Structures are given as structure tokens and as C-alpha cells.
């Protein structure tokens, strides 16, 4: 496949059948390999869409400085695009993230402001808003509230899925900014209203939920609950276990957020099998495992791996 530039190659990712993990010929699982994007994650789609939209709106002048709260993949995608388009980037990232993320961000030229581990991404969002107020000429694309985030998935991920798998019955993805689920969800509601839209939300260690009060909770501005059919919370242990199964049984090396999504997908598959229903369940492989190798959670006992991820933002 030939493209005129790296950014032209974002999207059009493969949808891979999982013959071993699928419970039967009537209940099949399909993995959409978003790690095949230029910076190795699904975030390339959302960020490219957000940057293009900001340029069209005249909000980004040459040499502008971008600011973004991120736990990693968004920042990495933005760092690459900023470099190609001639912008500076400052990321606000929680300190409890794997060192690979810092290396990648730095390599692509981003500056990093670390936010406290306590409070996780909520705290990164809070700090980014303070920094934005102090630097009014910086541009915060703000993935949590930017409609172009979900629009990327409405325009690309959703149509790709339906073209590759017209018999789709369930779509399962991770819930972070909610962009993937909102965009694909809206597209499928319009074209295949019977398809179930299922969210898998990582359940982190207690540190991440260490808010000072409940009013500091955070729901992304782009989130529209009515687009989802169900939402599951998946803990680190199940996410690690499924990440390992995906590698052992299907040869796919993915990050832990994908394990959490697979856990929900397998739950749906089992339910469909028991009910005797036909199901084609597509789920998102958000990224590869490369950025998380230093956690040590790919080897050793599940107990050790679970402790290794405790307190980390692993998705």
C-alpha cells in the first residue's frame, strides 16, 4: 500500500479473526489492530483529526505551542504530528506512567510537566487547565472535550469496521476520553442500530481514585451515555490475564488496556454462546505491548504482575 506521507497512512487498520479465542463458529471475535498506526496506537486517528480541525478553524498558527493532558498515547501521537507540522508540544502527564512513554515523548521533541500520581488523569487535566490559564497563547486541543476526537472515529473507524464485517453484532472498546466509543457508537447507531456498543473501563489501583472530594470526579465533556449499551469495569488482574491469553493463543502482543477490552468481549461471547445466539464481536487493540515491557507484567506470576501494575496508569 502506497501513501504520500506518514500522516496519510493513519487508519485503514486490519481486522483480524481470533480462531482460538472465539468460542464457536457462530460466536466469533475480531481484533482491530490499532497498533498498526504510525505512532503505534489508536490515538493517531483522534489527534490527526483534532489538529486538522484546529488548522481549518484558524486556531493553530505556524510555530504555535500545543498543550495537552495525556497518560501517554495521545501525547505521543501529538508529538509526532506537531513535529511534522512545525508546532511545539507541552504534555501534562501523570508521574505514575511507564518510562517508555517519557522516552517516546522526549524523542519526538515534547516537553513534559509531570502531575501527581494521586488522582491519575483527573489531576493531569486539572494541572493542564491551570497551565493553560497561565499561558493564554498556548493551544490546548483538549481531547476530553473536543468533538473532532469522536468525529475521527465516526469518519474512519466506524465505516472501516462495518465494511470489513457487515455481520457485526457487538463493538467493544476502552473508555478513556470516550472518543472511540462515541464516534463509532454514533456511526453504528445510524447505520446498524441493533449493534451493541460496549465499554470496558480500566479499574486502577486506589491511588488513582485518591481524590480530595467527590466533586473532583471527572466525566469527559464529549461523553454521551445514551450511545452505550453497557459498561464494564475491569481490574488489572483480569486485564493482565487476558493480555497474556491474546499473546499465547492468537500471537497478538498488546498493551494491558486491550486485555481489559478483551475481558469484556469474552464475557459477551460466553453469554451469546449460552443463549445460542450468533455474534460477531469486534474489539479494539489500542496499542502494542512495547511501551509497557518495563512494568515486568508480561512475565512471572499473575500476583507479581498485578502488584507491578498497582498504582500505575496501565491503560
Amino acid at each position: 500500500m502506497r501513501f504520500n506521507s506518514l500522516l496519510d497512512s493513519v487508519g485503514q487498520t486490519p481486522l483480524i479473526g481470533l480462531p482460538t479465542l472465539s468460542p464457536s463458529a457462530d460466536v466469533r471475535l475480531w481484533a482491530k489492530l490499532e497498533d498498526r498506526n504510525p505512532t503505534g496506537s489508536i490515538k493517531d486517528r483522534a489527534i490527526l483529526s483534532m489538529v486538522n480541525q484546529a488548522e481549518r478553524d484558524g486556531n493553530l498558527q505556524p510555530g504555535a505551542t500545543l498543550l495537552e493532558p495525556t497518560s501517554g498515547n495521545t501525547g505521543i501521537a501529538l508529538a509526532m504530528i506537531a513535529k511534522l507540522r512545525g508546532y511545539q508540544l507541552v504534555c501534562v502527564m501523570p508521574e505514575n506512567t511507564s518510562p517508555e512513554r517519557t522516552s517516546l515523548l522526549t524523542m519526538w521533541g515534547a516537553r513534559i510537566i509531570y502531575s501527581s500520581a494521586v488522582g491519575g488523569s483527573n489531576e493531569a487535566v486539572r494541572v493542564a487547565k491551570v497551565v493553560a490559564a497561565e499561558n493564554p497563547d498556548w493551544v490546548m486541543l483538549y481531547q476530553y472535550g473536543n468533538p473532532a476526537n469522536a468525529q475521527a472515529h465516526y469518519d474512519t473507524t466506524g465505516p472501516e469496521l462495518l465494511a470489513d464485517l457487515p455481520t457485526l453484532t457487538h463493538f467493544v472498546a476502552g473508555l478513556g476520553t470516550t472518543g472511540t466509543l462515541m464516534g463509532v457508537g454514533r456511526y453504528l447507531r445510524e447505520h446498524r442500530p441493533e449493534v451493541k456498543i460496549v465499554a470496558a473501563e480500566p479499574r486502577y489501583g486506589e491511588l488513582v481514585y485518591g481524590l480530595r472530594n467527590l466533586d473532583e470526579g471527572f466525566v469527559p465533556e464529549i461523553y454521551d451515555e445514551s450511545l452505550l449499551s453497557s459498561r464494564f469495569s475491569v481490574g488489572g488482574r483480569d486485564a493482565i490475564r487476558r493480555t497474556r491469553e491474546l499473546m499465547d493463543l492468537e500471537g497478538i502482543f498488546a498493551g494491558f488496556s486491550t486485555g481489559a477490552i478483551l475481558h469484556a468481549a469474552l464475557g459477551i461471547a460466553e453469554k451469546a454462546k449460552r443463549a445460542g445466539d450468533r455474534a460477531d464481536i469486534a474489539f479494539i487493540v489500542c496499542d502494542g505491548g512495547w511501551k509497557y515491557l518495563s512494568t515486568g507484567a508480561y512475565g512471572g506470576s499473575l500476583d507479581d504482575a498485578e502488584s507491578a501494575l498497582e498504582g500505575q496508569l496501565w491503560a
Partner: protein
Amino acid sequence: MTGLSSDSCKVLAGTLAARERGIFVLIVVVSQLKVVNPRNVESTGVKFMSVEVRVPTILRPLTGGAKVVTAKGETLAAVVADLEGTYPGIGERLLDDSGLRRFVNVYINDEDVRFLAGLQTKVADQDSITILPAVAGG
């Protein structure tokens, strides 16, 4: 309710309080003609309704620091009312006039109750309920 929890087989401590409630609970069991799961049977042969509720750090000042508490009730609303009886003040932190507060998420066996029946979601014996504040990802 089928959840996704891998460790759904929770061992419940047979408490004295449960024995004291025995007679009332026995009537419920007989009237519903439920098949009694051996896990739910006390040595006296009496079934009791009990769920495990995981409480986030932020609400633990109200539970005397306890991370996991037990409560009873046939719906989530009843469980919250039961919690309020034991830990006064917790109800108001979870609910407002419209129902569950915006930044409070409640999961029964790992499934978000907003996509079940909300506060009217049925709770079965030995279900696991998790309360978490809403947080950002990405």
C-alpha cells in the same frame, strides 16, 4: 446477574447478626421457593441476603476506615438505604434528587448500574458492589 468478575466466588463470614435475622430471612426463602445454594446456608440452615460493597478511599471516613462492608437489600436502592442506616451520611454522598450523583459510579459484579436498572437494579445474594468516583482516562 452475570458479571465478569473472575473472583466472583466470595466467601462470606457467617455473622452473629445474620443469625439474629434468621427467622425473617427464612420466611423470605420459603415464600420465594428459591433453590438454596449451599454457599448461602448457615449451619442452622438459614439463608441470609448479604452483599459485599467496596468503598472508595474518599468515603472511608464514613465507614470507620473499612474498605469492604456488607449490606443487605434486594435492590441497589435498598442496599444504599441499609448502608445509610449503618453509616449515616453515606447516602447523601452517593445520591442527589435525581438519583446517583454525576461523579459516582456503581458497579454490580463489574457492570455499571446506569446500564442495568439504575437504583432499581436487583441485587442477588453474594453479589459484589463496587463504588468508585468517576475518573478520566486517555
